[in-house]
């Protein structure tokens, strides 16, 4: 398999409406996938409407090389995600993929994945990938409320799942950083992979730093191209401004000026 970016029409083969705000799309590629790594993303071309002039970035939620399908988890935010959420089986979606770097392989088996909101999307793929390397991570997932808790069985195939909800209607109550795994004196994990809203990632990074635990985060950003040419998506790092779409979206928190 080669590491090559492609622009391609994929066919929607399954639409799984998880709840009012979340949909999982399964997309079938017309030819064999290139190598795709966990943490990478796609740039999806939404219908040609004035308010969706640019493509929209989405993490790859999972990949099935045998069926040649990949999945996207879409959280409805604005016109672009609304349109995607209304796609039907048989429709086509144009993607540029795979984009960006990826989560690194850990040098430990004590791995924690932390996700919140649509930030849970890349963690399923990462869990799948870790399991191929015989690592069973703990997976801490934060949701708004019990109605949005979903795909738990899918995650459970690859690791132990802990659930939190903002309102306590399922699992522990509060933000992910309030979870009891973080409240112990010594953190039982040697590596954390985290994806979610900025504030959440910063809070997790703070705990990781406190415990001197290695931690990678997958950053969001506003992107125009997604493949490194527009320089719109930069984030400050120890090497100056770097592109989230090429040098990221995954960064080790050591490289970020977060305090």
């Amino acid at each position, binding site marked *: 398999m080669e590491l090559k970016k492609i622009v391609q029409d994929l066919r929607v083969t399954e639409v799984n409406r998880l709840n009012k705000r979340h949909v999982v799309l399964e997309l079938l590629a017309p030819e064999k996938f290139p190598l795709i790594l966990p943490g990478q993303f796609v740039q999806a071309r939404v219908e040609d409407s004035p308010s969706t*002039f640019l493509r929209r970035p989405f993490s790859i939620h999972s990949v099935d090389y045998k069926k040649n399908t990949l999945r996207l988890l879409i959280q409805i935010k604005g016109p672009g995600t609304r349109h995607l959420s209304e796609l039907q089986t048989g429709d086509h979606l144009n993607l540029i993929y795979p984009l960006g770097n990826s989560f690194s392989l850990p040098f430990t088996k004590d791995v924690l994945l932390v996700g919140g909101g649509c930030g849970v999307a890349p963690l399923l793929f990462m869990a799948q990938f870790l399991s191929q390397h015989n690592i069973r991570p703990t997976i801490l997932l934060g949701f708004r409320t019990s109605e949005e808790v979903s795909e738990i069985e899918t995650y459970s195939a690859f690791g132990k799942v802990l659930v939190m909800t903002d309102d306590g209607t399922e699992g522990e109550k509060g933000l992910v950083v309030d979870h009891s795994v973080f409240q112990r004196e010594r953190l039982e994990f040697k590596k954390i992979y985290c994806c979610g809203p900025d504030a959440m990632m910063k809070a997790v990074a703070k705990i990781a730093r406190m415990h001197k635990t290695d931690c990678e985060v997958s950053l969001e950003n506003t992107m125009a191209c997604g493949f490194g040419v527009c320089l719109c998506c930069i984030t400050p790092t120890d090497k100056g401004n770097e592109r989230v779409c090429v040098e990221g979206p995954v960064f080790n928190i050591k490289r970020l000026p977060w305090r």
Partner: protein
Amino acid sequence: MPDLSVHIAGMHFKNPVTTASGTFGYGDEFLDFIDLERLGGIFVKAVTGKNRDGNTYPRMAETSSGMLNSVGLQNKGVDHFCREIYPRIKNFNTHIIVNVSGSTIEEYAEVAGRINELEKIPAIELNISCPNVKLGGMAFGTVPAMAAEVTAAVRKVYKKVLMVKLSPNVTSITDLAKAAVDGGADVITLINTLLGMAIDAERRRPVLSTITGGLSGPAIKPIALRMVWQVHKAVRVPIIGLGGIMNSTDAIEFMLAGASAVQVGTANFIDPAISVKIVDGIASYMERHKIKEVSELVGALRTEL
């Protein structure tokens, strides 16, 4: 097969389709998507005297049929360009043209002088029109006397083809074009982005860290076409036209208005293979209209009744 080649200021271009500075990286980012050989040329990202970090995040806002950016000429400086980037890209089988930017006349001249030494770079495009840098840039592009001055200063040190890229944020684009030609420009490129602004009403904040930024995309095409048309009537040097070109019809419109070649900018973000599709689209338009040489299209707008 119609003849797509064009001659501009003594340079031979395979076809009139090139890519716009700041939207095409250094070209190699597109190797997965297209065969760069098929392009008339590539205008690489702006190069300045020293390393520039550009503006802080957020740098981008989507607008109706367009986008705003406030990248701010992020690049590693001319030294780095000559040492690291030039060797990597110099053997692409298409014209590589460097977009030269700066904050002072000295900086422009310094960068142009350095690029002059690079054998495989046949031309530079002087960017006197970037709205995203505090010092200089746009100021040079909005006052005719300054445009002439910076062009003349670069002309002294730059011996190959000198293109000057104009800002559309002016009362009279023809005055600026004439000033650049007086200063020694061989070619006029237009247009750069229009100064715009986006606001997030929910947060009651500007979307861009810099508050204002440069508008590009199909939203600006009518303005760009008008400026190409005006300048075509006002000066005798060739014009490279751009602003919102999304397909071959758009490209042909620019040529009819007077552009000898076009640049594809923002469209590259939406379809990284679009530039080559535009080459093909122009060829089939020519076949359909029985046009043998693409240069027949340049300025061929019929305005008689």
